[in-house]
């Protein structure tokens, strides 16, 4: 994901801003890292360049 995506995404639980912690970057894009809610502290993973902003209770219910 590009960093400017942060301008339009928020925590799905309380709609507060997210703070980026990038662990791997490539060509200016974030490949791996986390997004953490500045209000509730919930952490969302970024994997293969795609942020997973599903509410925590929906992360596991989905089919494989």
């Amino acid at each position: 994901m590009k960093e400017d995506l942060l301008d339009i995404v928020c925590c799905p639980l309380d709609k507060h801003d997210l703070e980026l912690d990038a662990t791997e970057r490539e060509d200016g894009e974030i490949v791996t890292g986390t997004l953490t809610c500045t209000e509730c502290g919930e952490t969302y993973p970024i994997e293969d360049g795609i942020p997973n902003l599903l509410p925590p209770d929906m992360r596991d219910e989905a089919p494989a």
Partner: protein
Amino acid sequence: MSGEQSAGDETGDGSDGKPGLAAQRDMEQVYQPAEDSKLLADAVVERVGEGDRTLDVGTGSGYVAARMREAGAEAVGTDLNPHACRQATEAGIPAVRADLTGAFDAESFDVVTFNPPYLPTEPEKEWDDWMERALSGGEDGRAAIDPFLDDVARVLRPTGAAYLLVSSLTDPDAVRERAAANGLVGEEVASESHPFETLLVMRFERAEA
């Protein structure tokens, strides 16, 4: 079928002209553009402006988002399905895995599009896999449409509009009522008849806009 595919070539890069196995698996689990996607995209690209910020909900392959981008808009896609997010990303569409518009800031978009799962489906048949999920709209066909209408006004800019694909099987009047309950007024902007249903594109904006 002449290519030599080595066993374990899980991430084939398509150098033999065919998608690799991982990409093929994504294809099988992601709704590919059909008549409904095209009807929605055709209606939206006529109305999207240069530089508009747009969000395609349930983006699947990224088709509608890509059409908006071709029309000059900035497009982002979102989907529940991780395979869809990957496919949209490969199509050059920034993708976010999320539930409808729930992970997006208020007043972020000029245009939001949604080609929802809308086929009425018996409960026991539901959501066995990602493809079923892309099609099934629950018992009344509106299991994804209703929560979409409940939140979409939040992410629209004051003059923004949402474009929703609905089917005659989905009871468009009930869709309109749900939208009205959320302060949205709708008009039909495109329709297409098929053997068992009529597909409609509805455009919604804030009632006070």
